[in-house]
């Protein structure tokens, strides 16, 4: 097995959930460290930690939903070790960073003996703890085109405790403004693989005026996009109710930020 930060893998080893013949540690490979910025794209390399990503100025300014998801993850100590790419490769449905990466159209860069390839994050994660990565491949980076013009984003998570807790449910909403306004909505901990609320997005994108009725209707449509399970953290019914409420709050937050102005 391949290890980056190891904050999942070492726990799985400790609980004997995995029993690999060997563990390949990437943490000494300099080329996989850091965050790059060129031609309007940000490159989050495989070993960039959640704290490094959250403290990157471009992330704070242009990708606020990703910033909030990084800060909602675990606690300040674990964020010094856990990596964004590692969280994507763990592919757990409750992975905080996955929803904003989906909204921001993140691309997963893969390398292996048969060459390099790039997948959209929605195609990379194929199920709970399952990815399209072959046994002899690694992810080298995640790339995101930074939004041009005015945009807004937020990640709203509920859990029993603010730190060190896994989401019961979370909603990510982003809005990009060019000639038209484009909303994207995705979720955490309510579907086996990453999904977007395409019907709710279509309603919002087609709306000529953003009033409470549209937001209500979009929040109701968001429920149709998810399929949560009942587990130790929350019931399916509670999660569905929370998705409706969090979607409502997330859309309103983005609309307020867009209308408050800011750099265009």
């Amino acid at each position, binding site marked *: 097995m391949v290890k980056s930060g*190891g904050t999942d893998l070492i726990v799985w080893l400790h609980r004997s959930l995995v029993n690999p013949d060997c563990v390949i540690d990437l943490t000494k490979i300099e080329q996989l460290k850091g965050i790059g910025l060129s031609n309007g794209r940000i490159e989050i390399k495989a070993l960039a930690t959640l704290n490094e990503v959250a403290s990157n100025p471009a992330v704070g300014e242009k990708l606020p939903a990703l910033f909030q998801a990084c800060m909602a993850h675990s606690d300040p100590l674990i964020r010094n070790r856990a990596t964004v790419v590692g969280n994507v490769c763990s592919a757990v449905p409750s992975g905080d960073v996955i929803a904003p990466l989906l909204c921001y159209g993140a691309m997963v860069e893969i390398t292996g003996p048969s060459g390099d390839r790039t997948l959209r994050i929605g195609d990379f994660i194929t199920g709970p703890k399952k990815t399209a990565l072959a046994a002899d491949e690694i992810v080298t980076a995640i790339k995101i085109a930074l939004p041009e013009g005015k945009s807004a984003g937020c990640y709203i998570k509920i859990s029993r405790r603010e730190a060190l807790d896994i989401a019961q449910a979370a909603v990510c909403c982003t809005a990009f403004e060019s000639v038209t306004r484009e909303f994207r909505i995705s979720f955490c901990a309510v579907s086996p693989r990453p999904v977007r609320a395409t019907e709710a997005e279509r309603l919002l994108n087609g709306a000529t005026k953003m009033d409470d009725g549209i937001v209500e209707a979009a929040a109701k449509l968001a429920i149709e996009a998810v399929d949560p399970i009942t587990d130790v953290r929350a019931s399916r019914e509670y999660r569905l109710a929370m998705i409706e409420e969090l979607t409502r709050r997330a859309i309103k937050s983005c609309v307020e930020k867009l209308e408050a102005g800011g750099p265009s």
Partner: protein
Amino acid sequence: MRDRKIQLNLNGRSVSLVAGDNTTLLHALREYGLTSLKRGCEEGECGACTVIMNGLPEKSCLILVAEAEGADILTVEGLIKDGRLHPIQQSFIDEGAIQCGYCTPGMVMTTYALLLKNPSPDEEEIKEALSGNLCRCTGYLSIVRAVKKSARIMAGLSEGSE
């Protein structure tokens, strides 16, 4: 599982440890004799095993010892100078921020890392910084007071030395 020799800078001294590939930094340091680090959950939840690694607070149960090759590691043992307790340790005692004591070494190291970065944190910053360290005794209020007191004492010490 092979044994491996690991060289690291532990509390300001260069030391070498011999440990198996699958040994965590927590176990390796405790075997070496540094028993300030506590083995709590071993799943990254409780923070009782917190050390400062290359300037950042980290949970040593989530680190394989081989990853610490060449690293600077600081533990509570490294805070004690000439047999005198560090101001953070003394503040925890003075404020009654220790009951069973199990979380204390982790709390002290996280506090040390916080004050290194932010010498006069406000209450919210203290709570946020300590949110990865669990205490089941104190209810945290005395711990927050101890951190504030540590910050005041350390600010006074650095003024005094100028």
